[in-house]
Every structure is written in structure tokens, then in C-alpha cells.
């Protein structure tokens, strides 16, 4: 829902990294995006393609998104299970004492520059 704001935030960070590394052009930006990070990759890419054209150094920059599957851990029986399929309740023992192990990542991993 807030993909455009997120895109502006990514562009700001990348521009800062580029400035401190004396970069003239950014070729691509690689993101890690958790499956339950509330950001829709397709919308993010649409916003990206629009927003980068307004920048100086990343007009042609591609967005490379790697999706991290969401996994939840059950504190009562130690099971690790898929968050998207089963949610907060452990499918093995029915406990709600669970927490997200991974899957809400939202990280700029690296940028490819020339």
C-alpha cells in the first residue's frame, strides 16, 4: 500500500551510498523482501520504474527482488512451519506461543554501479 514511499526511501539511501562512493551511474539495486513484509513486489517494481526516471544517477537502474519465505517457530514444541499457510497457531501442537523466525526482511543488499 505504501510502495511509492518505500521506493523514495530506497532511492534516497542508494543516492547517499552512491555519493559517498563517487558513483556516476547505478545499474541495479538488489533487495531482500520477506514474504510477510507487507510490500507487494509487483507494485514496488511499478513504482520503481516510474520513480527512477526522475533521478539523475539511476534512470536505467533495474530492481532485483529476492523473496525470503516466512517461517514461524513454535516455542512449545520446537516446530518450524510456513507462516503464510498456518499463521500464528502451530499446526503440530496448536500452541499460539510462536514467533516469526524470518520473512519480514526488507533490506537493500547491494547495488551494482559503474
Amino acid at each position, binding site marked *: *500500500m*505504501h510502495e*511509492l*514511499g*518505500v521506493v523514495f*526511501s*530506497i532511492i*534516497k*539511501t*542508494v543516492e547517499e*551510498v552512491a555519493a559517498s*562512493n563517487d*558513483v556516476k551511474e547505478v*545499474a541495479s539495486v538488489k*533487495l531482500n523482501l520477506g514474504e510477510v513484509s*507487507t510490500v507487494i513486489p509487483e507494485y514496488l517494481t511499478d513504482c520503481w520504474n516510474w520513480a527512477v526516471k526522475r533521478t539523475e544517477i539511476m534512470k536505467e537502474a533495474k530492481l532485483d527482488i529476492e523473496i525470503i519465505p516466512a517461517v514461524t517457530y513454535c516455542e512449545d514444541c520446537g516446530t518450524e512451519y510456513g507462516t503464510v499457510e498456518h499463521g*500464528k497457531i502451530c499446526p503440530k501442537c496448536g500452541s*499460539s506461543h510462536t514467533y516469526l523466525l524470518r520473512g519480514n526482511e*526488507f*533490506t*537493500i*543488499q*547491494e*547495488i*551494482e*554501479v*559503474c
Partner: protein
Amino acid sequence: MNDYRIIEVKESILADNDRDAEELRRELKAQNTFLLNLMSSPGAGKTTTLVRTISMLKDEFNIGIMEADIDSDVDAKTITDTGARAIQLHTGGMCHLDADMTRQGLREFGTEDLDLVVLENVGNLVCPAEFDTGAVRNAMILSVPEGDDKPLKYPLMFQIADVVLINKCDVLPVFDDFSKEDVVERIRMRNPNCDIIFISAKTGEGFDEWTDWLRKEIKAFQEA
């Protein structure tokens, strides 16, 4: 031929906003202004709750209200009628406020002489929860007609709230499928520590407890 190289960043996309938010909290502490971020879905009663809250606290605190909306200034007009200072921020289509937008609003507003500023965030249970505004405390309003299942559907909003106000309790006799016990249990699943207060902005039910909560938090902030 272009020569490519890779620069590792490994930075959370929200890291920049989190830094801005921490900085804003330091600035607010320096001038002793308590900033409350008030969130809810559209129509849960943020503005009506504020109007009654202002009328109960305006003799004790200098209060300012920042209204964030995609467009229009109807809320700021309503607030100004109470005698409190208000400013309307337009997010220009954005679904939430981030720390930098909040700071710009506060600067424009001029908050040095204010003890309490309430940021009325964009009506939305999803995006405002993702972005730290730099507020000292987060409050959210869930109104009875929205249903007691909302903590299940919008977990993050309930996770980050310091206080949940359950509003429109005057209509509980009509919305008799809304269970107070269930809603408390569902909020507790997400957030064992937040305070939960049942209120009605229309009748004033629960407002002694709610304004006491605010007094206590403001006092703790100013003495910290």
C-alpha cells in the same frame, strides 16, 4: 565498455526513517513537547475523541493538533473550534506519515510553547504502523462497529500501540456480537503490555481513565 562493480549495502529500508525518528524524539525531549501519534481506520472517531480530550485537558496543557490527511482541512477546522491550535498536513496521496514529514509539520507549526502535540495520522490500519513518526507514544482507536476481529487482521498496528482505545462503547447494546472479552484477548495475543481503555467519545465514558493515562505519560516524559 562499462566497468561494473558491486557495493554491499545490507541496510534495512526503514533504517533511514528510524534514524530520523530517533533524532526527532531527541529534539522533542529538549523542548519538553510530548508527541502522541494517534492512529485508527477512517471513521473510528479520532477527531471526536480529540475534541473531548482537548476540552478536558486544555486548562492543564498547551495543546496542538497536527491533522494528517490525503486532502481537505475539515478536521483542522473542527479542532480549531475547540480553541486548540491546529495545523493541517496534506500527504499528497501518501498513506502514512514518516518521521521526516512529521518533523516538517512540527517546524511549520512551531511547537516550542506546546506541552502536548497530537499527530492525527492518516486513517489506515496498515501503513502508519510500519513507519515510526518520532512520537513519544503510539495510541490507536478501534471502534465497536469495526468488529472485535481487527487485532487478528491488523496485527502490527496492535503490536506497536502503547494504548488501545475501544471507542463508541455506547453502541455496544446494538452491536451485540462485539465481545469485550474477545477483543481484549486478541489484543493481548499481539501485545501483552499495552493499556486497553473502553471509551465513548460521544458520552464521555472512559475519558477519566484515558485523560489520566495521558497525564501520567506526559508527567513521566517531562520528568525523565
